[in-house]
């Protein structure tokens, strides 16, 4: 009997993981389309419009292109690390979605399904851990290519990610101080109604958003691949689907960080006036995805508005502005929690 229960449990989780996997890849694929379309609209252009209606098949065409291009491995590269790097990068990117609570419970054919792959009580710590592992993919790729531009890009990316993780973690601590829990589910459920963390943590939110942009290597912090200086940065030497993996993983990272932002500061699957249990529990994921898509749009909006930071300005902003600010934010939150009881 216990065995049967376990089997049902495993099947359920496998199903959820597969759906999540497909969803993440699908969102990442269409984020590339969205990026190009949105960039075009911001610049008074049309964007991709030839592949399918409104260019909707463009990601498919891009995928076919990526798969059929020549897979080139430079002679001077560390061959195995060179092959490993894109895999490591996309693996880490895909792993982070495991602790995100997509909704309450899904009722399907009379079965109740928890809409979270695993409700570990250190969810946010898990995400931070995997995000910092992401730097390995970049570093390995840049180093194994044996190309100075790739190496520069990788070094820049890793130093940038390490610097901004500090401020990100410090701004997170303020949220955790309010919620008293590291579990994403608890953090989200505490924001039910309209008690979104962003109203209590406006400064923390701005710091977190900035750091999330830097962690995703997105403009204005796309130091790692600034074309004008470093050709392609850490993926200069990559081609075919290995390059595709790198580009794809960046969009996955963006999607995941947008969901995390929604969970931490914007109430996750809660929205005033809407019950996440509606539609057999599907309302929750829809709300969360809606918020995540909005933030993806904001990320792209920022990318097509702001010019790239210079490297020293980036370090200046990270170390001399964001980290002190987040410490101040932490102290203020502590004082506030002590005085007002939340």
């Amino acid at each position: 009997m216990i065995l049967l229960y376990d089997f049902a449990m495993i099947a359920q989780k496998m199903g959820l993981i597969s759906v999540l996997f497909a969803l993440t890849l699908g969102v990442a694929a269409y984020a590339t389309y969205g990026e190009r379309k949105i960039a075009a609209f911001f610049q008074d252009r049309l964007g991709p419009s030839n592949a399918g209606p409104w260019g909707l098949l463009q990601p498919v065409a891009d995928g076919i292109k990526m798969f059929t291009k020549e897979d080139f491995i430079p002679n001077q590269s560390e061959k195995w690390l060179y092959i490993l790097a894109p895999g490591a990068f996309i693996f880490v990117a895909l792993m982070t979605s495991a602790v995100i609570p997509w909704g309450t419970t899904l009722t399907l054919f009379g079965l109740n399904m928890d809409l979270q792959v695993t409700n570990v009580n250190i969810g946010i710590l898990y995400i931070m851990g995997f995000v910092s592992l992401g730097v390995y993919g970049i570093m390995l790729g840049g180093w194994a290519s044996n190309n100075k531009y790739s190496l520069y890009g990788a070094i820049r990316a890793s130093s940038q990610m390490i610097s901004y993780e500090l401020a990100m973690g410090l701004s997170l601590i303020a949220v955790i101080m309010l919620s008293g829990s590291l579990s994403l589910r608890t953090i989200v459920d505490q924001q039910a109604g309209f008690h979104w963390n962003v109203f209590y943590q406006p400064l923390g939110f701005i710091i977190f958003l900035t750091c999330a942009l830097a962690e995703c290597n997105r403009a204005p912090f796309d130091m790692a691949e600034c074309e004008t200086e470093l050709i392609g940065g850490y993926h200069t030497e990559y081609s075919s689907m290995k390059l595709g993996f790198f580009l794809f993983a960046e969009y996955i990272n963006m999607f995941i960080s947008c969901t995390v932002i929604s969970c931490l500061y914007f109430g996750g699957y809660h929205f005033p006036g809407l019950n996440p249990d509606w539609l057999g529990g599907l309302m929750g994921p829809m709300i969360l995805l809606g918020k995540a898509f909005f933030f993806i749009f904001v990320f792209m909006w920022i990318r097509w508005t702001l010019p790239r930071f210079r490297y020293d300005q980036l370090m200046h902003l990270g170390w001399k502005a964001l980290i002190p600010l987040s410490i101040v934010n932490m102290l203020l939150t502590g004082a506030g929690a002590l005085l007002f009881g939340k």
Partner: protein
Amino acid sequence: MQSLSNRSKQVVHKEMTFMERIYLPAIIKGMATTLRHFFKKSNTLSYPKEKKAFAPVYRGWHVLKRDEQGRENCTACGLCAVACPAEAITMEAAERNKGEEGLYREEKYAAVYEINMLRCIFCGLCEEACPKEAIFLTDRIVPSDYVRQNFIFGKDMLVEGITPDTRIDVTVRQKHIQEKN
């Protein structure tokens, strides 16, 4: 020095104020600007599918007209060559022989008529100078080529055809010239 346009600004290297140093107001301002463009109509034409109409005053590839009976209007008077500021037009005149009345309208005609399309500046002075309404600039684009020699257009490239479908319509241009003269 005195500014003529009133657009020049004095450059100052003053310290940034606090509001400028936190960047956020400037960023929000910039994002508002891009958002305005997001909802603007795109100027792009999907070129091969959509084509923009030429301006009625467009001046392109010349045509040497024939009259209603298919006879060449040009009498090789040379006024166009004289009017041409770019020295692009040359011609050789010849006398019409017996039996050629169906080909040429008057006794004299251009045996050779050449326009160097690389010299031509498409000013349209030739059509203004022409007393016989023989030469017009049309809305056709001069085709590109790799060889300079091929840009010297002879009568084969300039004279319109006799059959109705090879005729080239210049009524708009004709009206424009008449109004000008």
